[in-house]
Structures are given as structure tokens and as C-alpha cells.
């Protein structure tokens, strides 16, 4: 039967004393490899630790909270215009607004690109009383235009962009 590696077996390897002895110079190189790697790892770890610590700073906390509040605000406004589960279209006229609004609408409504079956076309427009200066606006097939209600967030401009 095999002595090789397998589900139950470890590799067959030469024992330490089956191997030729190693000169001290080679051992020193081996030690240098260890020290070099450790120094590299410490530098990498310090860099990583600093990056991680920066991510939890007070500034980042307030930025993240603002981002969540912004999307919560848009969600509430969107809910006031279209009931969850309905088929809606999100205007692609402004790609940035489309991306933002799609993130709000996709989890709660059924997105479509077919305007004929959509109960409304949603857009994100700069309007007072909105979420950081923007409001969700619904354009219904019968020509009615309504602005979302139920939430507002004072301030101007969207929160800082998230890294992609």
C-alpha cells in the first residue's frame, strides 16, 4: 500500500538525519530570511493597523452615519411615492442619480426598463426640503408629478462617495 499523502496519511519525508549537514553560512542566510520577513511583516502590519485605525476615526464615523441617514431619507421618500413591490423605472438621464436611486429602489421595488409597465418613473432632483438637497420625484403615467415626503436631511450635496 502507499505511504504517500492521502486522506489519512501524511507525506513520507526524509528524517532530519537523512539529510546532509548544513554549513553555518547557510544557516545565517536562513536566519537573515527570517529577520527580513519579520521586518517586512512588521512594516506591513503597522501600515495595516494604521489604515484600520483611520477607518474607525470619529470623522469616518460621522461620515458613515451621514451616508446611512442619506439613504434612509431617500428610502422613506421613495416609500411615500410607490408602495413596496411595485414595478418602477428609474430615470437614467443622470447616471449618478440613477446609481444612487437604484440602490434605494432595487431592494424594495421591482425595477424595470419598460416604462409602459412601470407605475412611476422615479428621479432624483435637486429640490429644497429633500435629502441633503436632493429629493425623490415620481412621474406617474397620468402625468402627475409628486415629490417624496416623510423625511428630510438638512445640508447640501450627497455624502462623500464610497470607495468602489
Amino acid at each position, binding site marked *: 500500500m502507499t505511504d504517500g499523502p492521502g486522506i489519512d*496519511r501524511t507525506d513520507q519525508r526524509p528524517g532530519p538525519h537523512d539529510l546532509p549537514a548544513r554549513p553555518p553560512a547557510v544557516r545565517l542566510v536562513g536566519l*537573515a530570511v527570517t529577520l527580513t520577513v519579520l521586518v517586512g511583516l512588521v512594516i506591513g502590519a503597522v501600515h495595516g493597523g494604521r489604515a484600520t485605525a483611520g477607518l474607525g476615526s470619529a470623522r469616518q464615523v460621522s461620515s458613515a452615519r451621514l451616508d446611512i441617514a442619506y439613504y434612509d431619507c431617500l428610502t422613506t421618500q421613495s416609500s411615500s411615492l410607490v408602495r413596496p413591490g411595485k414595478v418602477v423605472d428609474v430615470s437614467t438621464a443622470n447616471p449618478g442619480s440613477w446609481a444612487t436611486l437604484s440602490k434605494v429602489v432595487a431592494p424594495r421595488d421591482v425595477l424595470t426598463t419598460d416604462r409602459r409597465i412601470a407605475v412611476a418613473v422615479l428621479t432624483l432632483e435637486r429640490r429644497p426640503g429633500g435629502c441633503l438637497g436632493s429629493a425623490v420625484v415620481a412621474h406617474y403615467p397620468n402625468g402627475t408629478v409628486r415629490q417624496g415626503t416623510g423625511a428630510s436631511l438638512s445640508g447640501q450635496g450627497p455624502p462623500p462617495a464610497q470607495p468602489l
Partner: protein
Amino acid sequence: MASCALAAAGLLPVLVLVGLRLVSIPLAPLTGAIMAALAAAGCLALGGSVLLWFLGIALVAGLSAAVFVARYPGSRPWVRPSGGARPTGSANRFHRGAGMVGAAVIALAVVGSLSALRAPHIGFDARTIWLLHAVWFTDGHRTALAALSNPAIPFAHASYPPLIGGSVAISWLITGNRSDTLGVVMIALLNACAVSIAAWAVVEVGRHCGSRVAAAHADHQALPPRRGRLEAPYVAGVVVAGLLVLVAFGVAGPFATNGYADLLWSAAAVGAIGFALVLPGRRGDLWVGVLLLSVAGLTKQEGTATAVAIVVLITVRFAHHEWAQLSGVPWRPLGFGAIGVLALGAWPFLMVLLGASQNVAVFGVRQGDLVSRTHQTVVAMSGHLHVLAFAVPIAIAGGIALGQVRRASGLRNDGWAWAALALGAFLVAGTYITGPGNVGFWLDTSVHRTTFFPAICAWWIIGTWAVLGTAQAMVPRTSDPPVEAQGTGRPLDEGPPPVLHHPS
């Protein structure tokens, strides 16, 4: 609570497959996440609630584990296998101590790294992909199936594997808290588990080397060990593991804690390489590798492709050895390898079967020719793989100066790990080069994440060389007196010899 539910579901199967080991702690939630992925697949393909599927799968897995243990008493988690290089006496003290201290150091490093969760960032992909998938699975079969082929949400990558979506859906349904923040925390915890296991593989390397040094010293009983020589590999394993956690979180940056899945599959794949390709191939280690490959393959498409590549390498490793030993066709490893590849291909096949929208990473017609796209890809990827300029010379120097130590230690050639790294990187590069759209935009928005795997893998490989450098005492020096009588490798306290090969 949500992660405890995943851990509870995965605990029994992990204990039976892997044993009562410290690595089972972070492995249990990941195994629960695999069950959540299977539940999501069942919900999507056949109908029913994802929670019911999850409970059913967890129950079947738990019962199967219990029945297996009852039928085969030798497989009980608390029964140690009759073999393995487990030292006794003072070496065993170091062995156990390194395990406990290593676990504590990794836990501390992980907790420190997760402090970034204080700022509850929800990343772009978290909203557009991962949490959205969780919403579909939470809402059930009809919603998930409809979303799969909805052309209005091309950004959602509907055909991505279901591990994240399934796990978050389970966490929402169990806690009743359907918040994005909970979803992001769940993903971050899964990331942390995967990183912990990849780091733990280095602790295992240290413990393995330490036991070999102890055995070598037992052969050389006339020579008292120099101070610290026995402990050095254990200490190095623990230190490198702790540093590796910080490095991995540093490589991932904000994407470790803002709901992205790239760190999860990357760290899982690195852990699988450690346990299944580099460590000597004990049954429990191989199962750790299998579970981690399942995590990588069920998380993201790059993960699936990389996991398939690693399965092929593992198959080649074991098939080659059996071929050399038996001089016949190594059916067993080839069979297991084929099963692994088929299992990893099941989700993409299901997506084709269910008519999922094509996964479009970048829109528009293809721009640039092969040469220009290759140049752009190489430049962009190399910008995030500076570690290779450090790791390759280290590996060459390590191979020359420490190759003998590695062979004596029983660890596999790091060439296996490099092969996995290269295959993973080439698969990603090939996708950019042969894919659609504007490759510059595509690279700008993703290459910093698709390079997590090769970057972390390179750090991991050189970490093992650092540990091996502290285990040189297992190979005699030219200045050592010749051994009068070859010892038996008995440990320090005259305990039983470490048995390195046990029958199947």
C-alpha cells in the same frame, strides 16, 4: 446572535470532519455560511423559504454528523488520531501553549482590525450586490427568480454565488433585524473568520516545525538544545500569524468592513492553500481545505475560478504521489478532484439552467486590442502587488538556504502555493484582457480588490519561510558531532515516537 446561529449550524459537522481543534472555532460560522449558500440555492431553484431550507440542511448535517460519530467511535472529535507528529513532554507544552497563545494573538489582531466597524460604512457593492441578493433570498423564491433575469439591474451581478446573500438573509430572518448595518457586520465577521484561519495555518506550520525540532533534538540527546531553540518555531508561528492578520486587513483596507466579499474568498483560498497544499496532508487539515475552498467558490466568481485551480493543484499533488507509489492510475485523488470541480461548477451551471442575466462586469463594446489591454492590466495589477518584489527574492533565498529544513519539516514545497497564486492572478488578468468594455475603467474600479488574493498569498508564503528559518535546528550543522546511533526521534520525555504515517 446571527453569527452564533451560523456557527451552531456548522459546529457539529466541523467537529466531526476537522476534530476538536482551535481552528474549528472560526471554521464553524464559515461552514454555517456554506449551509446558508446551499439554502439560498435550494430556495432559488426549488422554492420555499431560505430559513426553512437552512434549518433543514443544518438538521440533516447535524444528524448525519451525530450518526457518523455513533457508528464510528474513532471519528469522535475528542478522540485523537493514532498518529500525527504530536510531541509529548515539554515539547507538547510548547505545542499546546503555541495553540492557545496563537489563538489569543489572532483573536486580538482580529478584534483590533474589526474596530473599523465603529464607522458603519456600507460600500457601493454592498448595497448594489450583496445586500440586494440578501433581500431577494429573504423575500423568497419568486422574488429571487425574477431578479435573476431582470435586465434592469445589471449592476447587481445576479449570477454571483449565494454565500454572502444567503448568510445575510439568514441573519436578518433569525434576528428580525433587516438592517443594512447588520448585513455589513455579518460579512465583516465572515471576512474575519477566513483571515483567522489563513493566519492559523501559519501557527500550524510553527507547531509542525516545533515538533520536528523536538524530534530531531531527541535524536541528538548528547547535545543540550541551545536556549530558545525548541520554542523558536512555535513563537515565530504565533508572531507571524498575528502580523499576518494585520497585514491582510491592511491589504483589504476599507473593503474588509464595508460589506465587500473580496477578502472573504481571498483569505479562504489562502487558508485552503496552507492547509491542503503546504501542511503535510492530515485528514483534518484536508477537510479544513475542502471547507475553505467551498467558501471561496460560493462567494464570488473569481473565488470559484481560483478554487477550481486550487482543487486541480491538490489533485495533482496527491495523484502524483500515489502514481509514484502505486505505479497505477491514482483513481482516488482523481475522483475526489473531479467531485470538487463538479461541485464548484454546480452554481454556474444552475445559473445557466435558470436563465440568469449574463454577469456584466463592465458595460460597452470591447475597447483596445490584446496587447494594449494586457499592458494596462499588467501595469494596474502590479501597482497593487508590490509585495511580490519582496516575496519572490525571499522565496528564492529561502528555497536555497532553507530548502533542506523545509524537506526535513515535512511541509510541502512552496512552489505549490506559488502555482496557486500564479493561477489565481492569471485567471483574473485573463478576464480583464479578454473581457468586454473599457478595461481602464474596469481596472480602476476593481483591480485593487481582485489582487487581494495574490497579495495575501505572497505574504502568507514568506511568513512560512520566516517560521522555517527558526526551525533550522532540525537539520544538523557541519560543526555538530556525528550521531553515534541514529535515534528514534523520541520526544524529550521518552514518550512514544511520533508516528508520521498512519494506515488508511
